[in-house]
């Protein structure tokens, strides 16, 4: 109950902050248009040149899959790595370590609060725009899609936070985590289908996507494919297993990190 109260306080406070300073929303919206919009324009041309279908999927399916990736990226959950690194490097971690809260959970709620407003606003606008421009594929009108789209987004949120928390916590040992962050982030981008939709991946990359936590953290991009009807149980299950395993790893690392902390000036 207490955790829920703290979480809702952090999220509501930060959401209010984001609403008061809409600059960040505009930046996020611009980034979304620049990255996703341009890619979709290019893909629409490629699908056109290929008679409307590539690898068994139509453009509107590819567009929605990519849109899910980009709208989720606006949530900026990956920034939890940098936030933890900053706390460690600046010594600011000490102002949070002596509060009656778990530092790691605080950072998780903080990250959700930071990105939630942009994510919701841009996703709603993006959905409307995409429905008007490319329409809804039939796979998105099925009961399974409607029932599973929110759980798969929630799974992606929890798994992303676990992955990027682990990267951030490495800062307690190596301080400079940027190279590791870069590798993991690019793995997530590639396997999440930001450049190429999953349906067009070669077989080995499909396997890598399905069985790695990096791919699993973006399983919402699979929900628009025909195969989702058979695979959703496995994919939600895989997301849950990775989330539990990596959350436990993050927690263990955090407990070790607490004993390792040596704060600047101390």
């Amino acid at each position, binding site marked *: 109950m207490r955790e829920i109260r703290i979480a809702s306080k952090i999220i509501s406070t930060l959401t209010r902050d984001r609403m008061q300073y809409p600059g960040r929303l505009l930046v996020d919206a611009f980034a979304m248009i620049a990255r996703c919009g341009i890619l979709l324009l290019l893909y629409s041309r490629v699908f056109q040149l290929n008679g409307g279908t590539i690898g068994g999927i139509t453009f509107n399916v590819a567009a929605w899959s990519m849109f899910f990736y980009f709208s989720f990226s606006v949530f900026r959950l990956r920034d939890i790595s940098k936030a933890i690194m900053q706390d460690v490097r600046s010594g600011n971690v*000490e102002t949070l370590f002596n*509060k009656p809260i778990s530092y790691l959970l605080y950072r998780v709620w903080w990250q959700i609060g930071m990105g939630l407003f942009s994510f919701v606003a841009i996703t709603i606008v993006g959905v409307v725009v995409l429905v008007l421009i490319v329409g809804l594929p039939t796979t998105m009108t099925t009961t399974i899609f409607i029932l599973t789209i929110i759980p798969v987004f929630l799974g992606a949120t929890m798994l992303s936070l676990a992955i990027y928390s682990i990267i951030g916590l490495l800062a307690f040992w190596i301080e400079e985590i940027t190279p590791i962050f870069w590798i993991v982030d690019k793995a997530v981008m590639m396997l999440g289908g930001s450049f190429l939709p999953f349906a067009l991946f070669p077989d080995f990359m499909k396997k890598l996507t399905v069985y790695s936590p990096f791919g699993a953290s973006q399983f919402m991009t699979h929900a628009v494919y025909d195969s989702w009807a058979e695979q959703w149980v496995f994919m939600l299950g895989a997301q849950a297993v990775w989330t539990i395993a990596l959350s436990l790893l993050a927690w263990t690392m955090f407990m070790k990190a607490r004993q390792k902390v040596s704060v600047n000036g*101390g």
Partner: protein
Amino acid sequence: MSETKALKIHNLSKIFSFSVKDQRAGWMRNLLKPHTKAVKAVDDISFSVEHGEKIAFIGPNGAGKSTTIKMLTGILFPTSGSISVLGLDPTKDRKRLAYQIGTVFGQRSQLLPNLPLTDSLEFFGTMYDMPGKEIQKRMAELTHLFEMDSFIDQPVRKLSLGQRMRAEVAASLMHKPKIIFLDEPTIGLDVVAKKSLRDLLLKINRDEKTTIFLTSHDVGDIETLCDRTIIINHGVLIKDLPTQELSKTFAYEKYIDLIPEDRFSAFPELSAGMRYALKNEDKVTVMVDMTKMSLQEAMQKLLNIFRVEDIDAYNMDLETIIRHIYERDPDRQ
């Protein structure tokens, strides 16, 4: 209160270990078998603090003050020794202890920079599990006490340093802690802001019986705020005495200022028990060792040597006393 002491520290030590690059070894060896160096930041210190006391915990840079505070507040784990804060062990009961202590780190902010101060205070109240009504009541109390009405609705990043420090202290007092740890709270503040903050801390100590544990390089903080001073250097506790006693530490040393009628042109050798602290054409300061001669004797001797317009005798100021204590610490020689 069930506990007899607010703080009880016994044989507390902290060793920091870190890898250092061995210039003679290759990168592979440095990577796989790094050379480690250990620094003893706090070395076997013991002391206790009563409820409601106002403690100055001082020492030069790198003495181990902040490390000790961080161990007392559960941020750092001690290498050895025991700590009891309000009867709790910070390494095992960090969360429970956090409800009863407040912390202010002068060089770090715990407030939310982009949001109005009210949000930070509300947020702290929520973090400390206070009911909504109590949060509002406490906010009103602190806003009045800390005179924050004029800037309570401003984003924290727009506050002046003095306003921000007042807000930092107010935030750390939201949950009415029994002890407040302040690590250089007046650093960078002007004289007016310093005085205002000190007055507030004294008021909090008087009205809410909050124990104050403060580190500072500012003698004014120590003199006006604290009734007891603990001095640490090189991780070792070198003095623990009432602040008033501190000025008596070098009471056997007196200073005499001599102002010339015209200008001092020569500085003859002084007799045993006196030495020059300052030799200037416009002013001479002589330090007198009272164990070797009386003040009257010293003055007479000086008046025989110098033609003066004015003469003034006084005790060493606290800042000089503290500097002497640091300098006389044998480890520092």
